[in-house]
């Protein structure tokens, strides 16, 4: 089981001078600690215009800073929006290769197509075309990284023969992923032989279904490059020795994330199209009380919020349904003071992580 940390870089109002810098500096301190503690990866999303929810519009820069300040943790560019109006495919390949070089071959590249009207309209992107442009881009990326000279004549972009430079350190290329929010995308991942990066909090049942479908389909995939057959899911982490404090603090974070998330204007709500099958809301499903009446905490199923024992139980459940990794949001809207976030990371690394490392080693 691999453990990652995941950043939306949410910024609470009011947007006073210095508040964004503080959010970024807090995140970098968390990343440095996570590296020391043995976390496997740090992921940063790409979002534009999403007030409060995510001020992470240039994740490759944030991740470069992460790479420069750490030694071991892998950097997850996740996910870059594969729509030429937002990121030309050549620029994606170039920036990813540079990040792979600067991090010493620690890059993971997530791909996506954006799910909000706010972002798509901000770049005058036709929602009907994003799946196609994503597909075309991800098929081109491995070739751009591995061929000495590359050319492409496609529907969403064309490139005459050119050398795409530099080339990544990892050979044949960094692992590719696709973000999975709505049902069905796991099949897109499997058919292309790329990793399944959950970015919406999913129930055990839904994740089990997705993982099962993914595992079945990837057996017969036509890979677009080197196969990455990992499944990772998104979670929230707040670990404290005191279960009541953990629930209070963790649920506060969860509530603020959910509110910020629901203020987003999803494409499906604005624009009638079959290209976006669901609202793609990233918030956890309404809290299904775990094992009521024994667990009155109100913590939704599977969330890594609580004391170490509770979190171990939740992660074992994820492990049992075939998930390879869990990526954690550590904070939302700066709801949790920085010292508590760091303490939560330390406690998780001391009490929870060894339970899974020992199993792998033994």
């Amino acid at each position, binding site marked *: 089981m691999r453990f990652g940390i995941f950043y939306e870089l949410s910024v609470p109002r009011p947007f006073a001078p210095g508040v964004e810098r503080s959010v970024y500096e807090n995140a970098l301190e968390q990343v440095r600690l996570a590296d020391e503690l043995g976390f496997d990866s740090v992921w940063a999303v790409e979002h534009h215009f999403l007030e409060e929810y995510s001020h992470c519009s240039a994740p490759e820069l944030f991740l470069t800073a992460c790479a420069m300040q750490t030694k071991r943790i892998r950097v997850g560019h996740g996910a870059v929006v594969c729509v030429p109006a937002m990121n030309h495919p050549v620029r994606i390949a170039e920036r990813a290769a540079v990040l792979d070089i600067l991090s010493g071959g620690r890059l993971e590249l997530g791909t996506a197509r954006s799910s909000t009207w706010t972002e798509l309209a901000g770049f005058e992107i036709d929602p009907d075309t994003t799946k196609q442009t994503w597909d075309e881009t991800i098929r081109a990326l491995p070739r751009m990284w591995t061929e000495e000279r590359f050319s492409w004549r496609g529907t969403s972009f064309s490139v005459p023969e050119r050398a795409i430079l530099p080339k990544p350190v990892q050979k044949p290329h960094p692992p590719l992923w696709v973000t999975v929010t709505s049902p069905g995308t796991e099949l897109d991942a499997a058919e292309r032989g790329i990793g399944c990066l959950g970015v919406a909090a999913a129930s055990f049942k839904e994740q089990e279904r997705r993982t099962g479908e993914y595992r079945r389909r990837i057996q017969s995939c036509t890979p677009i490059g080197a196969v990455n057959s990992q499944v990772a899911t998104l979670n929230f982490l707040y670990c404290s020795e005191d279960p009541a404090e953990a629930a209070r603090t963790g649920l506060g974070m969860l509530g*603020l994330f959910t509110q910020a998330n629901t203020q987003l204007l999803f494409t499906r709500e604005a624009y009638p199209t079959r290209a976006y099958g669901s609202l793609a809301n990233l918030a956890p499903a309404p809290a299904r009380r775990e094992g009521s009446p024994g667990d009155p905490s109100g913590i939704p199923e599977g969330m890594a919020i609580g004391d170490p024992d509770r979190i171990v139980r939740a992660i074992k459940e994820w492990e049992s349904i075939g998930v390879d990794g869990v990526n954690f949001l550590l904070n939302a809207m700066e709801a949790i003071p920085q010292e508590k976030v760091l303490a939560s990371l330390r406690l998780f690394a001391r009490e929870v992580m060894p339970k899974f490392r020992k199993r792998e080693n033994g």
Partner: protein
Amino acid sequence: MLEGNADVAALAKRAPRLESFEAEPLALPSVEILQVTYELGGRPPESLFPPALAPTLPVLAVLSVWRSADSPLGPFALAQLRLTCRSGVRPRQLLAASFADGDRARAALNERFAFGARPAAIRLERFYDRVDARVEADGRPLLDVRALGPLPLATGDLQFFSSMHPAETPKGLRLVQVDADLAITRAERASPHVSHFEPDAFGVPGAKLAYPVAAFVALGDVTLPRVRFVCRPDVNAFAGTERVG
């Protein structure tokens, strides 16, 4: 978090009277629907909503025109402006203003579902390559919209959301949640075009239709069911939502 900060007293001034929550459902067969959506600009998003609601970012102006030729209340047309928002974590649309022709239908919509519709002449015309709608009150044009180049879409590709209608109710000033049920049998997407829009008449003075989003035309059976929820406008919906049916 951005939350609505519109003056609740001002909301009360335009709120129609809803005498009872016990009104019978209203079934409207084969309603022709034109919906044109724009991003709304010119006003801070939070100024458009009472504290119970939170704006989406951006706020969408949803202009819809229904024509019901076979209504049990006689033929009528209804034009509405609704604004996209959240009630708690749920997607909703706040009714900013509405107009209706057909006296019986208008009275029923107002008395049973707090539409607060004012009289107007409403025209909805279907051409081969477009659908036009026009709203006039007291001989003055208020709205002129077109949906250009309609192309078929699956009926399931359309999404509809519950509306929040300000009203003076037996419980006091409330936002009445109207959960219209639309069984769509035909759907087409089109390009939106608005040639005239009076923001004052539609309850959003100072606002402008800033950026076109989408248009659709549809045909379907519409049911306005009995009211089940209302919400205090002055407090967050988490605290102010009440079940009434």
